[in-house]
């Protein structure tokens, strides 16, 4: 294990994770809104926001999938020291982190069971940037309509059609984070 893996966690975990969770909660409850989180310094290629999301939501009881470039020794060591989540394949994962391209095909991820739709994966999708421009979002959490630069629309429309099953997404870029639960309807206008 390299010494760098010991750095980059929260310095005051209870308060920092509380503040970060509120931002993540607002992001997930209001799809399309872009929030800022801070406090983590994960190794490359993970963004600050992806690192924060992992520190706040994952622990030894959640199975984590590292996709593409995110599956590297530095990230594995960092996850092992700060989080302790078992790293698993996509089919078993509770959480997955990687770029949208690396996460493909997303049909591998768990969408929950008809009687337990909560047993589904949460994807942390690394993006270059997040802006309120692009496909239109409607549904729970959105008063009229909001916009977010999603990587595509067809997959999210297919995911919505599975409701109440489906996976949920957090999009991360730098310190920015946005949410897209399965309940959101996505349209290319």
């Amino acid at each position, binding site marked *: 294990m390299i010494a760098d893996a010991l750095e980059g966690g929260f310095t005051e975990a209870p308060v920092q994770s*509380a503040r970060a969770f509120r931002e993540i909660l607002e992001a997930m409850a209001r799809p399309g809104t872009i929030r800022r989180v801070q406090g983590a310094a994960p190794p490359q290629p993970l963004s600050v926001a992806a690192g924060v999301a992992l520190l706040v939501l994952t622990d030894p009881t959640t199975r984590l999938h590292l996709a593409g470039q995110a599956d590297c020794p530095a990230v594995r060591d960092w996850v092992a020291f700060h989080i302790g989540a078992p790293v698993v394949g996509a089919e078993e994962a509770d959480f997955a982190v990687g770029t949208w391209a690396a996460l493909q095909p997303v049909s591998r991820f768990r969408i929950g069971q008809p*009687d337990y739709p*909560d047993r589904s994966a949460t994807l942390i999708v690394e993006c270059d940037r997040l802006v309120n421009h692009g496909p239109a979002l409607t549904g*729970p*959490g959105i008063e009229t309509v909001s916009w977010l630069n999603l990587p595509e629309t067809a997959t999210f429309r297919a995911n919505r059609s599975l409701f109440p099953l489906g996976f949920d997404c957090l999009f991360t870029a730098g310190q920015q984070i946005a949410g897209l639960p399965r309940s959101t309807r996505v349209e290319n206008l």
Partner: protein
Amino acid sequence: MTEIIEAGAYNFAYLDEQTKRMIRRAILKGIAVPGYQVPFASREMPMPYGWGTGGVQVTAACLVPEDRLKVIDQGADDTTNAVSIRRFFQRTAGVSVTEATTEATVIQTRHRIPETPLTEGQILVYQVPIPEPLRFLEPRETETRKMHELEEYGLMHVKLYEDIARHGQIATSYAYPVKVEGRYVMDPSPIPKFDNPKLSGNPAIQLFGAGREQRIYALPPWTEAVSLDFDDHPFETSKAPHDCDLCGARDSYLDEVITDDQGGRMFVCSDTDFCAGRRAKGHTGRLGEAA
């Protein structure tokens, strides 16, 4: 660290970090599937079941040090349950507290929605005794889970129909079931049905915690929650046909208070902050004194 030691050597907001992560994951899944009851590993809290252990755990998982917390019990800020939960979080999370609905960022509530409209940025946390709306019709969890899975809610309509057959109207007056976004039937906790219209299209985040029954569910902002009814018996709210005797409000939910053993009684707003705010503005009712 000093603030934590001064707060009595508790971890921030009492619960340990792993417990809070588990609750936070359940809250996010609840937000993603509005109205669906997410199982969670409810902890024992330093208060008995029935005193809001579910709500307290949800509040603990959401609080940040900058929050201003309001706690109400049947609308009142000054009853035992509200006072003790407020003190609990003052001591373990060091948050400031308020009785004003407009100043609060997190509001934990037992069985009421404040009269003052909520706003974006606020979180309303409900204490829920029995989260399963079908439980009194079907005691088996395996069966009610299957009914939610199959969207088989005929039994609930039969129950409401039997109300009409027996009483001439839908007699359910609290914990009145709602259908969320056309999918899950949800128990809004035992709020009076007077409050049901405020559930729907609310700009605040609404979270529901049932400690003994180990369930968390949620209504994201602007989510549709329709009270179940029939075309020829549409849903109607109800309240005591009086004005508040202290502030004169005609549109607020009222408590009936027995004042003597001669049949004397008065009706007062159940929402103490709303009532006090009106009296401060100079409104008075039948028995109220001008401020």
